[in-house]
Each structure stands twice: as structure tokens, then as C-alpha cells.
């Protein structure tokens, strides 16, 4: 339920945390990190649109 509320953008709930051994991270922070990694991969792989005045 908490994870769903994070995905829906509902920030009026206590943060839900993932815990793996000594590592603990909120779902919100994990989502931001994953989005940044996806943005980075897309930025170096997607072709850039060709402009009108570019030869």
C-alpha cells in the first residue's frame, strides 16, 4: 500500500523503506536514483534529432 502510494505521488504518507542488510533506503529516494540511471542510459543511446541547419 505504501509502495503504491509512492508510485501514485502521494507524499502525505510516512516513507516506506527497503532494508537489505545494513543498507536502508526510502522508496522515494530509490525511485529518484532509478530515474536518473534511466535518463543517463537514454541520453547516451538515443539519437539526437537533426536540426534544419545541420549538415
Amino acid at each position, binding site marked *: 500500500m505504501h509502495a503504491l502510494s509512492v508510485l501514485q505521488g502521494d507524499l502525505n504518507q510516512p516513507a516506506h523503506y527497503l532494508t537489505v542488510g545494513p543498507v536502508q533506503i526510502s522508496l522515494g529516494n530509490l525511485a*529518484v536514483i532509478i*530515474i536518473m540511471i534511466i*535518463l*543517463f542510459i537514454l*541520453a*547516451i543511446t538515443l539519437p*539526437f534529432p*537533426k*536540426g534544419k541547419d*545541420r549538415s
Partner: protein
Amino acid sequence: MTADLDATPASPADPPPGTHAAESSSTWTGGLLNRWQRTLPPEKLLPDKQPEYVASWIYVFGVATLAALLVIVASGLILTLRGPAWWHQSDPGHYVNSVHLWSVELFFMFMVVHLWGKFWMAAWRGRRAMTWITGVVCFLASVGTAFTGYVIQTNFDAQWIATQAKDGLNSVGIGAWFNVLDVGQMLLFHVAMLPLVLGAIVIWHVLLVRRHGVVPPIDVALYEEETS
């Protein structure tokens, strides 16, 4: 006065107006102008063409970070004018407060992708070390500015963050000068000092990028070295 100026005949050897004053001037303003023109001529300051390799999405994130920063400053100015009661209790206040928060989220996401891109292409190459260093300082100043923003929200979240942070800051010995429980000090850090510092370093960073040009990808630089 104007008659004297008009009466002076223009010599064909004279350079265009505004370009020669610094050459022979012994004033500090003339010297500064001369140095500015040598360091950052107009064609470097506002270039109308970029190399082919700049046509890549990874080169977009620097300017995307700047765009997010402009939205942060604009929404922050509105919040400063209207005050906490407005951003807590009115619908327009909630909206502008949210714009301020989410533009900060985008600012950091774009800045981190920009940082990754520049790190993996070793962007300090070609006498660009200071460009890299000012970028790092920008990042650190941004973290400080965002942190002071969180502790001046004037809500329970701000109180929680401040009371948690004070122990960490005291443990490293800076609590006496940077007191997160002092809302007045944090407010002035957030709306005056840090934005001024950050703004100055961002301008310096951008001017350095203009001066040295956008860093080429590593393989392009190696090819240019081999063919030069």
C-alpha cells in the same frame, strides 16, 4: 561637447569605436576591458555554432540544470514575497511551493546526470580543471542550499530534519557557526547568502565553459591529437 566629438575627423587607420580604448589605456577599467576581450571575446561568449559531437542528449543536461535553476529562483522569489502563511494555507501558495520543490528535484536529477556524463568523458581534459572544480563546488553549494530550504519550511518536517541534523553538525564542530535550530540564520542562508554564492559560481562555471569550449568526447580528442 558633441560639437568637439563631431568635429574630430575619423582616420582610416582608426579601429572601430569601442575596440581600441583598452589597448592604450592605463586605467584599471581599460585594463579590465582589455583582459576581458582577450580572455572571452564575443565569438566565444555567444557562439552561434557548436561542434558536431555536441548534438547528443548527454550534452543537454547542463543547460537543463540551468533551466531548472531559473524556475527555482523565480518560484523562490514569489515564496519570499508572500511568506509561510501563504504557502501553507492558500491554494496558490501550495502550488508555488510545489513548483519550488519539484524544480529542485529536477535540478538535482539533471545535475547528477550532467555530472555522470562529464565524469565518464573526463571533462577536466584540455585545461578544463577549473570548470570541473567549479562544477563540484556548485554541487556542494546546492546541497547546502537545499538543506537550508528543508529546515525553513516552518512545519514538523523542518523541525524533525533540524533536530536530527544538529547532532551530526555538532559532532563535526560547526554547530556554533551553522546552527540549524536558528530559523532566522537558516532563512538568511537560504534566501540570501547561499543563492548569491551559488549564483556567482554558476556564472563562473558557465563562463569557463564558454572560454574553453564544450569538452569533446575522448575518441574525438585522440583523433584531433593524431591528425594535428
